[in-house]
């Protein structure tokens, strides 16, 4: 694996770290299985891309992407909380609706950003190669966001949100308004996914409606890889696990892409990726078993 390929995998892994943190908030903190992310990822990309191509500052575009993602999360929470639609189904409804909405926002399936000003543009040309600049900038953003999320979850409001996820009945008995926490949590989770979409579009030069496919799978895989490796007992460790898990997942794909050297075909990519991630999950377990016997 070349240096550029490795840093590329790290960069895309860091972009998807926002997805992993969002999925962690929904699935783990709120215990809300949320598939909205397959729609809110390209939604963030679409909103940012359209704003950037019409000359608006890319940071504003990112902010709008976060807000758009948050609204998508709110819609899912609304369908679930107000009308009692099963959380999985509510999120699927939002997800499929977003495909059409994303097409409306962009006006076409693909908006190019190759020649546009992005949040990364000011950092190019500082004498550091582009392939270092991208992961570095996104790493800084990930750290800031993870820090803010950790602070949020440690606040009174955040603690009540965690209680909502662990035992909603008990939380209500303690005077927690669980509905509000689900709304806020879902908005936050999908806002982060929207940010990931916006950053993906800007680092890769395009927003495409098909970029959402499988986002939830990638996010969940990252969360679980992180959990398996870190066995987190604290929120901070769990968030670090999300980031590391996401990067490991991408590095696994990068290894799988190089697997043709050992006689595998391009079409084996998904299988090889699955095997590598499975190995990453099984290895620590084997080690653990040895230690206990």
């Amino acid at each position, binding site marked *: *694996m070349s240096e550029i390929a490795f840093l590329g995998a790290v960069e895309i892994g860091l972009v998807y770290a926002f997805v992993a943190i969002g999925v962690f908030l929904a699935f783990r903190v709120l215990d809300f299985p949320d598939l909205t992310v397959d729609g809110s990822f390209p939604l963030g990309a679409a909103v940012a891309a359209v704003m950037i191509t019409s000359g608006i500052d890319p940071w504003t575009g990112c902010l709008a992407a976060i807000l758009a993602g948050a609204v998508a999360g709110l819609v899912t929470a609304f369908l679930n909380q107000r009308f009692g639609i099963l959380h999985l189904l509510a999120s699927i409804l939002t997800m499929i609706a977003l495909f059409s909405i994303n097409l409306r926002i962009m006006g*076409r399936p693909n908006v190019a950003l190759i020649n546009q000003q992005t949040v990364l543009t000011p950092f190019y040309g500082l004498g550091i190669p582009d392939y270092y600049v991208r992961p570095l900038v996104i790493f800084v953003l990930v750290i800031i966001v993870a820090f803010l999320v950790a602070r949020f979850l440690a606040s009174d409001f955040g603690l009540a949100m965690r209680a909502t996820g662990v035992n909603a009945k008990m939380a209500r008995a303690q005077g927690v308004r669980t509905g509000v926490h689900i709304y806020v949590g879902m908005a936050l989770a999908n806002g982060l996914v929207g940010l990931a979409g916006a950053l*993906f579009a800007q680092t890769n030069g395009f927003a495409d409606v098909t970029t959402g496919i499988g986002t939830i799978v990638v996010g969940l895989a990252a969360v679980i890889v992180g959990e398996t490796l870190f066995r987190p007992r604290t929120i901070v460790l769990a968030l670090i696990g999300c980031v590391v898990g996401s990067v490991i997942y991408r590095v696994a*794909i990068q290894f799988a*892409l190089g697997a043709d050297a050992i006689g595998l075909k391009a*079409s084996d990519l998904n299988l090889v990726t699955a095997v590598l991630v499975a190995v990453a999950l099984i290895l620590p377990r084997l080690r653990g078993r040895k230690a206990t016997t």
Partner: protein
Amino acid sequence: MLKYLAAVAAVGFLAIPAKAEDVTVAVTAIVEHPALDAARDGVRDGLADAGYKVGENLTFLYESAQGNPATAAQIARKYVGDGPTVIVPISTPSAQAVVAATKDIPVVFTAVTDPVGAELVKDAAMPGGNVTGVSDLSPLADHLALIKEITPDAKTIGVIFNPGEANSVTLIEKLKEFAGPAGYEVVEASATKTADVQQAARSLVGKVDVIYVPTDNTVVSALEAAVKVAEENGIPLYAGDTDSVPRGAIAAVGFNYYDIGLQTATIVAKVLKGESPGSIPVMQAEGTNLVVNPGAAKKMGVTIPEAVIKRANTVVQ
């Protein structure tokens, strides 16, 4: 390390008369399906004709993103890191990912319908930079002329396409531009995934006189589903690429993706010989092959005129 050894060896053997230098061509497509695979094979065979043979002086790499743009982005980074002589991305998202990842390595894209709209090049005639390629915008006027010749009474054309595919949306826009003056009304049916193609085809029954399947990755992948509906309801089904005719379309005129691959290879060969991609204009896919399928026509209740069959380059039996 091997690279350095090779370099040292090359310097050592400078005395030996020049053999064509070893080159690496890295190809990537967004997804694997018959047409895009044919384009890839065309590139490989076209390079062989130009004197670059796999196993001799050409290393030919290929990766498919399996339909996932994030994987396409990773493949782009891998290739840029590998530093091949030329990168050949097939389809719009793959091409955008590669072009965004490198400003130095020559890129020759192919099977991109609207390269200017996709910001791959600023100007098709004079690309500049490190990028050029082949656009696969269908010769839509020819397609409409063929439909008129075989089914002269048709007034409405049903089009099945995926509104999520940039290539197709460009095609449908252009088709509407041509259809009005030619006296046709266009009815759209969208299928966002292969599983929806049959339903989309059914939605056209009773509304249209003929069905036209453009070069859409989703619909072409599930062409048989549309063909089945067309046969059951006696609606003639035309295709935008000739590869689809043996699979059950009545007829198509234009290019096939293997030929687009060959055409792409001519540009790649130029770049390998040292020409700058920026000075090579973007080419339009060429090909005026007429392929007809009288058996399929019969099932859809149409007889292909004798004149058309005579003119055809290939008649599918």
